[in-house]
């Protein structure tokens, strides 16, 4: 019994990481209907940026966030205004193709610069530290990851619903033409949305890099987890995305408990069931 409780709790905590993978994806899709195929590779890119920063400056990966978050945000803004804005229109195919191309480019650039050897961010004592709570051993890192996910999503939610920037996101998401007539520069608002999304991606990448080893090819898997969390939770609903991440995480840890080979399969099966039964996700956005 205790083992099962443990599996569920570990799954919930793992869900925090998946929610962080998914939050940026959800935000970008919500604001500009852009499906970013390169999202997973951008997470891995952020992990490598974290690696370089912490090695070069000799600092803890968490301190590297001070560099990587603004770096990824800046990259997001430039990427959006310089490239992705040009692909957006009535046709959904161009952004898919362009971000797929971007995914290939990022993977190959990482292979060239860092080789295919697995790398890991060294988190120090925090990686193995754990708390004993009611007979369960909870890792400090997973707990911290989950806490960060909650804080990030609360912050995104606050930006969306209580700030002028968020009204801009919601206005362009609602009706781009009217938003422009009401004074929003669409290209700029989209740039800021991508900047915010990649700032979250930076956090996700560094937490991923401390948790497990990574190499240039692992982006695809992170993209799938992110997608599944977004779809399970319901498009455009940030708290739903957290719930989606948790459901995916729990499905995986329970699957692994039944049989170690079932970890990923169990997650995918839960995703498929949700997609079949509730195509809009469990907690779809209520407006419209």
């Amino acid at each position, binding site marked *: 019994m205790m083992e099962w409780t443990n599996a569920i709790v570990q799954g919930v905590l793992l869900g925090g990481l998946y929610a962080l993978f998914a939050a940026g994806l959800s935000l970008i899709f919500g604001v500009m209907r852009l499906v970013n195929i390169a999202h997973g590779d951008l997470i891995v890119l952020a992990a490598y940026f974290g690696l370089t920063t912490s090695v070069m400056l000799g600092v803890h990966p968490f301190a590297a966030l001070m560099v990587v978050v603004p770096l990824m945000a800046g990259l997001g803004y430039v990427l959006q205004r310089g490239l992705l804005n040009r692909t957006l229109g009535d046709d959904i195919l161009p952004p898919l193709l362009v971000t797929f191309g971007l995914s290939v480019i990022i993977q190959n650039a990482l292979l060239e610069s860092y080789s295919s050897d697995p790398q890991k961010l060294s988190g120090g004592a925090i990686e193995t530290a754990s708390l004993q709570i009611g007979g369960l051993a909870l890792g400090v890192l997973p707990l911290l990851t989950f806490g960060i996910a909650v804080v990030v999503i609360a912050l995104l939610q606050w930006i969306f619903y209580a700030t*002028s920037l968020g*009204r801009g996101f*919601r*206005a362009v*998401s*609602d*009706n781009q*033409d*009217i*938003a*422009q*007539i*009401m*004074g*929003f*520069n*669409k290209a700029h608002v989209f740039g800021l949305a991508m900047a915010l999304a990649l700032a979250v991606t930076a956090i996700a990448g560094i937490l991923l890099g401390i948790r497990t080893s990574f190499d240039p090819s692992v982006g695809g898997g992170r993209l799938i987890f992110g997608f599944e969390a977004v779809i399970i939770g319901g498009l455009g609903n940030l708290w739903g995305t957290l719930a989606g991440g948790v459901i995916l995480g729990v499905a995986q840890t329970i699957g692994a408990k039944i049989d170690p080979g079932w970890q990923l399969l169990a997650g995918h099966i839960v995703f498929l069931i949700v997609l079949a039964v509730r195509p809009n996700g469990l907690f779809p*956005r209520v*407006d*419209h």
Partner: protein
Amino acid sequence: MSALLSVSDLSKSFGAVIVADETSFEVAQGAAIGILGPNGAGKTSLFNLITGAMTPNAGRITFDGADITAVPAAKRCKMGIARSFQVPQPFGGMTVFENALVGAVQGAGLSGREAEAHVLDVLEATGLMNKANVRAGSLSLLDRKRLEMARALAAKPKLLLLDEIAGGLTDAECVALIETIKNVHAAGTTIIWIEHVVHALLAVVEKLIVINFGKKIAEGAPKTIMDSPHVKEIYLGVDPHA
């Protein structure tokens, strides 16, 4: 008085459909003018050209002393041009208050409590105070029309473009609307008003422009225009020789 808005030789067509045909007119600072014309005459397209939603094929638009022909729509809003839409287009996922707040922040450049106070004034004036926290997507058509007005007014525009804002209102509502628009005009806002409810229009405007097939066919004092046989023929479908 100098012209706030000057449109010269403005042309726009979509293939064979001409929505503006070398249209020229000026709107003086503080004026209120009405635009009449049959459906499909190019009235709304004219607004689209003035707000920047459409780019003209030829011609020039000058606003507040600056050539805005190539200025993007978002910038024109900040310069002081706001409009309402014939078919209301609120941001459906936002509350009434937030919709108007967009106007106050983006158009009028207000922030914080100042913006909120201004929005409350506008909601009071447009009769939407009791719906401030209702999601705009769930409003009735009448309230959506009110919101069109509120959002445009919240932007504190120098030039307010009203597109068939009186259509579908009851007489009492229409009287209240005319009162609101008169107050806005009295406060110094320049107004261009497209309207089929002619009596409402005549209660406010001091000049009428009639367009048909994208072409300006008459411009002048309301009484002269309404009495013109040419206008009656085109606009009201009355045969002047009958």
